[in-house]
C-alpha cells in the first residue's frame, strides 16, 4: 500500500515532466525534462517491483539508469559538435569540406 502512494507521486511527477517536455521553449528545457522522465521511469520500475513483490525489476531499472546517462550525454555531444562522431573524425571531415558524420 505504501508503495502505491509513492508510485502515484512518481506518476504525477512524470506527467509534469512530460508537460515540460512538450512545452519547453528551448531544447535544453526538453532535455531537462527528458532526464527527469528517465529518472522517473527507474523509480517506477523499482517501486512497482517492490509493490508486486518481484524485486527482479531492479535489474531492468539498473539498465535504464545507464542507458539514460548515455542518452543524455549523446544528445549533449550532438549539441556541441553538430554530429555524433569522434571529435577527430569530425575535424578531419570538416577540413576536407564534407559534412560531419
Amino acid at each position, binding site marked *: 500500500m*505504501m*508503495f502505491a*502512494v*509513492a508510485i*502515484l*507521486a*512518481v506518476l*504525477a*511527477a*512524470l506527467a*509534469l*515532466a512530460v*508537460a*515540460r517536455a512538450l*512545452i519547453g521553449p*528551448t531544447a*535544453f*528545457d526538453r*532535455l*531537462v*525534462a527528458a*532526464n*527527469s522522465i528517465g*529518472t*522517473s521511469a*527507474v*523509480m517506477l520500475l*523499482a*517501486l512497482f517491483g*517492490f509493490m508486486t513483490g518481484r*524485486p527482479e525489476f*531492479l*535489474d531492468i*531499472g*539498473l539498465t535504464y*539508469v*545507464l542507458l*539514460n*546517462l548515455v542518452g*543524455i*550525454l549523446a544528445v*549533449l555531444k550532438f*549539441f*556541441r*559538435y*553538430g554530429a555524433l562522431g569522434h*571529435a*577527430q573524425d*569530425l*575535424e*578531419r571531415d*570538416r577540413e576536407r569540406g564534407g559534412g560531419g558524420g
Partner: protein
Amino acid sequence: MGVVVDTLSFLALAAGGAFYVIGAIGMNRMPEVFTRMHAVSVSDTLGVGLLVLGMLLQAGVTLVAAKLIFIVLALWTSGAVATHALARAALHDGDRPLLAGAGDQLEHADPVALFPELAERLAAPLTSETPEEEPDKAPSEVVMGPRGPVGDGPGKGEGS
C-alpha cells in the same frame, strides 16, 4: 521491530514522493532553463534518495538492497554529470541566467560582468580539452559550425 521499520519506511517513501513532486512542480513553474535544472535537482537527489531509503528498509540486508544502492549511486552521479553538461551547453548556446536586477525585476544577467574570468572560457569554442592547453591559438583558425564556432579538435594536424 517490524512495525518500527514499516513506519520509518512509509515516512521515507511519503517524504520522497513529496520531494519528487515538488521538484517536478518547480520544473514547470521556474522561468528559465537554469532555474529549472535547479528545481529538478531536488527530485533527482533528495526525492530519489528518500524513495530508495524507504525501499532499502523494506529489503533488509539482501542482494536487492545492494542493487538499490547501485541504482541510487548511479542516479546521483549521472544526474550531476548531466546537469553540469546541460548547463555548460546552454551557457555556450547563448542562454543567460535570470537574476534579480534593479527594482526586484528579473533580468537576463551577463555572467561575464559578474565573473570576469568567464569571458575567456565563453569566448573559447567548446571542446573536450582543458582550456589551458593551447593558450596562443590564433583566432583565425576557429571553424564555424552549425551552432557557432567549433573548436579545433584534439590532435589537429597530427592526423594523416
